[in-house]
């Protein structure tokens, strides 16, 4: 419980800075409105106004909290105005993309570890794929897949996969190669097949690497799903909320969607962390 105080201190500091920044950024608008109405604001009135605007440059924390409460708790989750509904749209694409990315990354890692030609040729392409800005390639993926009749969940999941397979490939190549020369020699003395070596030695050895890669991949996957929702014309999902918010200057809506995305990512990564702890403890590796 000793760590509670420093954590609270940091959180407190963030709120103080946030409120102060809201005053600083929103004050010009408050003064303009007051000047047009021909009234003068004293300091407490000015501060109160900067924290209560409809479309502030930077919404104050309590405004975001109210918006979150309103859209998460007060709306039915089937409503298009519910943030839970939009979160689920994004999360489902994230999870599907994450699963596909993990599978693809794992398959590529296996190929790289077991096949010399793939070892020499695949990695540069994998790295090149990540140097292309996802914002540039996402609309093309959406358009191309739409042209072949795929829309909705799958194109977004493909973009998630595009971002999330990379950490899995890098981590699993390292992980599958983590057994030392002695352990591999030992397998050789038993005349083990490559499959037996994979299942009994390389795969268990790679587990710590797998979980670490999966955490990075999960966060990347969520970013991919949100980016994938931007070019679809703001139909549904957290990305759509961000886009709609920026069309109409609804900064409070943007911030609540951002915070929702952060919470989702944190929860998903924490879940992987929990599984990691349980599995590695059972395996005697943590």
């Amino acid at each position, binding site marked *: 419980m000793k760590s509670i105080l420093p954590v609270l201190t940091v959180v407190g500091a963030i709120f103080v800075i946030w409120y102060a920044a809201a005053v600083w950024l929103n004050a010009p608008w408050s003064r303009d409105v007051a000047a047009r109405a021909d009234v003068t604001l004293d300091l407490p009135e000015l501060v109160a106004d900067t924290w209560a605007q409809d479309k502030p440059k930077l919404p104050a924390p309590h405004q975001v909290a109210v918006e979150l409460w309103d859209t998460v708790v007060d709306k039915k989750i089937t409503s298009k105005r519910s943030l839970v509904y939009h979160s689920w749209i994004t999360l489902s694409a994230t999870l599907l993309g994450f699963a596909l990315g993990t599978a693809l990354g794992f398959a590529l890692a296996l190929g790289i570890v077991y096949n010399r030609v793939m070892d020499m040729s695949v990695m540069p392409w994998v790295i090149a794929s990540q140097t292309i800005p996802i914002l540039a390639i996402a609309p093309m993926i959406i358009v191309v897949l739409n042209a072949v009749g795929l829309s909705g969940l799958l194109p977004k999941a493909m973009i998630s996969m595009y971002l999330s397979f990379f950490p899995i490939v890098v981590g699993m190549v390292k992980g599958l190669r983590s057994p030392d020369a*002695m*352990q591999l*020699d*030992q*397998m*050789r*003395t*038993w*005349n*083990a*097949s490559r499959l*037996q070596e994979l299942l*009994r*030695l390389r795969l*268990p050895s790679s587990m710590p690497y797998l979980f670490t890669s999966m955490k990075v991949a999960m966060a990347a996957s969520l970013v991919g799903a949100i980016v994938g929702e931007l070019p679809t014309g703001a139909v549904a999902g957290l990305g759509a909320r961000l886009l709609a918010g920026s069309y109409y200057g609804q900064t409070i809506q943007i911030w609540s969607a951002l915070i929702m995305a952060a919470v989702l990512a944190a929860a998903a990564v924490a879940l992987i962390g929990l599984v990691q702890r349980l599995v590695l403890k*059972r*395996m*005697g*590796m943590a």
Partner: protein
Amino acid sequence: MAVETKTAAGAVISARGVDLTFQTSDGPVHALRDVSLDIGKGDFVSFIGPSGCGKTTFLRVMADLETPTAGEILVNGVTPQEARRARAYGYVFQAAGLYPWRTIGGNIRLPLEIMGYSRAEQASRVTRVLELVELAGFEKKFPWQLSGGMQQRASIARALAFDADLLLMDEPFGALDEIVRDHLNEQLLALWKRTGKTIAFVTHSIPEAVYLSTRIVVMSPRPGRITDVIDSPLPRDRPLEIRDSPEFIEIAHRVREGLRAGTTQ
């Protein structure tokens, strides 16, 4: 020179003029030169020499973990590769190399699973070899729950679990302290007597080599070669006290002389 030149009938290991050169970025390294040796069934042969003398390399050649560049070596009358494929030997490495995610029993079962023994057979073999290395009752424990000496005993049990009459051991007790090592040496001799296995044992400890072996092969470096082969006159029954006997001290002296001659050439 006691290096034999004729092939002994029924030798477990039979090496003739084995040469091994590693190509490294600093040029070729002559790891073994003209190594000829026979190891008979039931022998306990120690290889001793300073680092770089090729003792481990020679053991790895027997195990088909290295391929000689010249010469001929037979294990059980076939090539090392055929012997490895027939699972003719158990190999004990310097480190125990137990998998942390498997219990002691699970670790010993590992080669048995790979070799396709039935579950019942696996269970009975695990119990048997654990008794052999005096680790009965530790089957369900994980490696981290055991001391270094016990872990090494478990790794020996693993090498004994399948039907290999040849045991290749590469400095198995090198990382352990003197007291544990004495105890394990005693146990290893008892085990050798009980199982009748042929053992090739790499070490850099003179007392260990003399205490354990029926034959001691002295090697020297640059290039790695055999400089002396000593047939031990000690009886097969060897209490630890035998190390204070004049015979023991005489053999130890001869090994030391051989090592010195090899390095000052």
